[in-house]
């Protein structure tokens, strides 16, 4: 039994899974799927694995999971020995995890959609999409400001959870879709705190923090 991820490197949803696996220090085999321009996610072979033709897909033995939020929940419950990434200590905490997993979809549908428009020429009403993206980031900004008043760095409390992993990529990639971070200081602080986590990995458009270690000498 081993974990297997069907992956596209530019997908924020795939990156959620790669990032969480890295943070858990959990090995996973990876198959790259040529989403663009090859549209390999719509090929008959891939549709046998996931009839919906979406990425990412994670398999673990006989289990096949086809949604990034579902994959994060599964990995946290099965592979996180610390039990901190998906705390289910009380009803309210469980509900808040669900809230932010749903909010992550709102980010994908707004700032993520604007990014697909700008990067891959996917058609959409770009002005309306960016306006909706800014509205979502304002919601995130207000919440993270209030978390700051409580001395909490992350979406739920002062330790990171899968809620942070689910919301991080598309919030971080917003400038790729013409949505700058300038208006969102609490969001910027939170993005830095996530990038500061031990074993953090990059994706194109999200680089690691360079202020901590020296670069290799020439």
């Amino acid at each position: 039994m081993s974990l297997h991820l069907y992956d596209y490197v530019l997908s924020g949803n795939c990156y959620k899974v790669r990032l969480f696996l890295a943070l858990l220090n959990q090995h996973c085999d990876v198959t790259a799927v040529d989403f663009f321009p090859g549209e390999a996610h719509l090929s008959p072979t891939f549709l046998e694995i996931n009839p919906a033709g979406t990425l990412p897909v994670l398999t673990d033995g006989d289990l096949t999971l086809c949604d990034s939020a579902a994959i994060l929940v599964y990995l946290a419950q099965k592979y996180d020995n610390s039990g901190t990434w998906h705390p289910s200590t009380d009803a309210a905490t469980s509900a808040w995890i669900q809230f932010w997993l749903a909010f992550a979809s709102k980010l994908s549908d707004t700032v993520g959609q604007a990014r697909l428009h700008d990067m891959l020429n996917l058609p959409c009403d770009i002005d309306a999409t960016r306006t909706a993206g800014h509205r979502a980031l304002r919601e995130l900004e207000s919440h993270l400001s209030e978390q700051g008043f409580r001395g909490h760095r992350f979406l739920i409390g002062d330790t990171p959870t899968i809620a942070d992993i689910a919301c991080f990529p598309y919030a971080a990639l917003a400038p790729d879709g013409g949505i700058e971070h300038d208006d969102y200081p609490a969001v910027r602080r939170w993005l830095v705190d996530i990038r500061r986590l031990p074993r953090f990995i990059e994706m194109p458009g999200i680089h690691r923090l360079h202020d901590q270690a020296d670069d290799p000498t020439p």
Partner: protein
Amino acid sequence: MNTAADITSWLPVALSDGLPDGGVMRVQTAGHDLALWRAHDHSVHCVDNRCPHRGMRLSFGFVRGNRLNCIYHGWQYGETGACAYIPAHPELTPPESLCVPTLPCVDHGGRVWITLDPDATALPAMPAHPGLRSVAVNVSQDRIQAALGSGALPSTTHPQRGCSARVLDTSAFDCRIALDVATGDTATLVVSIQSVSAERSQLHTQLTAAASVELKVAASRWLDALRDHLEATA
């Protein structure tokens, strides 16, 4: 020559708490694109947001020690704006001509200020209240000042967090607003308005006294309502 007008040439561009040691952020005002950064000796600096090497925004860069590093090729700039080190040419002492323009920048009264006027008079003493938050508003500075001057401020109605607000006074630098919270608590909010462009501004806000989490949340939600009110009536 110091005139009264010089004093107001200082622009508040961030809360002191909003720019930690080693922090870099982008500031836009009056057509200027700037990078604001704080060295690890706690000093604040403001430079043109363009690396003279390849034009990369320096606000994408990072701070090591007391130098701002460009993200693209790692060129390092000290507090004078002069290039101090080029990683691809470690033996080279960069010529003086390699420098990025700087603006006067001070951390004062709990806020970070810049001025476009190199002869600006020093800012007067003002209390360094703790920062609450900076809020972006898609309305011009003039319209916000007019709205605050008219005294027609919004109220929030939540049974615990609801606030009614009134302007206490306005100075050349900020506006003080009294918040009466539904719980009976009161707070005084100091609002400094930064013009970003003809359509956009930032409100850098502070509370004059230590406050509970509940009181900060009430004030923060009221600021969201103020922003929505300003944008709806602009």
